[in-house]
């Protein structure tokens, strides 16, 4: 009885899965859905490597149950690129070298993606606060900040171009 049917939209697709009530969302994504983008860094809600989007908010998937997502719209790093074209946030991390080992990157991308919708034209301070739930042990953050700044410009240019 501890298993339940869960229906959600995952990266734009309707899915229906049987999950154990105790299954953490990050394990559900990685092991049941084979979406290994969301990483497990600490499993204690400290590092942000597991950050994904639920109903338009950044959430740490290691501290959320899969059953809680019934009826939700979930997006992972796998859902960022569209038709093989990188999302501007991904492009910016690539161009600005916003990563070294890449372990924190899926979480950084998903947090930056959401943060730039919350605050499309942030100051450097606001970026640092906005991504303060994501740790990186390699880059020293400088290039990550640059990447987010560059992504902000790209997204704004796109906005103007499509207006």
């Amino acid at each position, binding site marked *: *009885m*501890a298993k*339940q049917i869960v229906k959600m939209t995952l990266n734009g697709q309707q899915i229906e899965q049987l999950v*154990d*009530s*105790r*299954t*953490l969302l990050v*394990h559900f994504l990685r092991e049941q859905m084979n979406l290994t983008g969301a990483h497990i860094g600490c*499993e*204690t*809600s*400290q590092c*942000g490597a597991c*950050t994904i989007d639920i109903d338009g*908010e*950044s*959430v*740490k998937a290691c*501290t*959320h*149950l899969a*059953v*809680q997502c*019934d009826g939700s719209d979930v997006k992972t790093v796998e859902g960022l690129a569209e038709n093989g074209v990188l999302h501007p946030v991904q492009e910016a991390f690539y161009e600005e070298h916003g990563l070294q080992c890449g372990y924190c990157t899926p979480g950084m991308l998903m*947090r930056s993606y959401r*943060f730039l919708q919350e605050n499309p034209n942030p100051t450097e301070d606001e970026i640092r*606060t*906005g*991504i*303060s*739930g994501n740790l990186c042990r390699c880059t020293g953050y400088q290039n990550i900040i640059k990447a987010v700044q560059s992504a902000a410009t790209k997204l704004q240019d796109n906005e103007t171009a499509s207006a």
Partner: protein
Amino acid sequence: MIPPNFEYHRPATVDEAVGLLTSLGSEAKILAGGHSLLPMMKLRFAMPEHLVDINRIPELSGVSVVGDDIVIGAMTTENAVIADPILNEKVPLLPEAAKLIADPQVRNRGTIGGDIAHGDPANDHPALALACDAVMTVVGPEGARQIPASEFFLGTYWTALNDDDILTAITVKAFPNGAGFSYRKLKRKTGDWATAACAVVVALSGGSVSHIRITLTNLGPTAIRAHDAEAVLSGQTVTDELIKQAAEKAMAICDPAEDLRGDVEYKTAMAGQMVQRAIAEALSRAN
């Protein structure tokens, strides 16, 4: 780390939730933001057989004004507290302090009610609730009752809530006109609990203190109100010397637990600093 097995329930109304808690008894726990409960379950510090998820009960979130009262639904998240226009206008201490809690992702999930109900002396909302003279609305099998913050926090992980109670709302009054406020929190890094923290609300009348609350986080088994420190300032025109005396009175009631954040002497000394800074900042904002 995967939590132990449990049965998951998702009621749609408070009545349904109370019914579940009544029938399931002490084997059930409420799941709010889950950012204290799920970590405790992973560590087997908590092993409930049933989780009653109250995230889809709309009446439990949001802020409203009812007469003189500002009613904050228990499921209002930290980020919603930070963004709320009513709180920013009338009780600005709460949004300002909520920015110092955890990080953006945790603040999307963590709720003001969960922060208070958890009874963790390291959590920030208990001292803030004391500073705002908050009143808790609790619904149990016998209906609703009101518990003032001063009678709510009984010990570490111990509150006035029974197993079958739900904290539904936290009610505060708007600050007096011209009141100053401050929350000073010493922490080692973003997302850390306080090494020592102090909340102050102060109002002046003709230059002397007409209303004052001084409360402390993580400096004893529960959040504490520093009555003796308040008495030093009450009715007075505040001087630097009086601020120091108030801080000493506050330090005298500190009883922090030693941990990786520091030993008792260090934490108590830092409490004195936080109290002085919070009083000074609150006064500088009062008019």
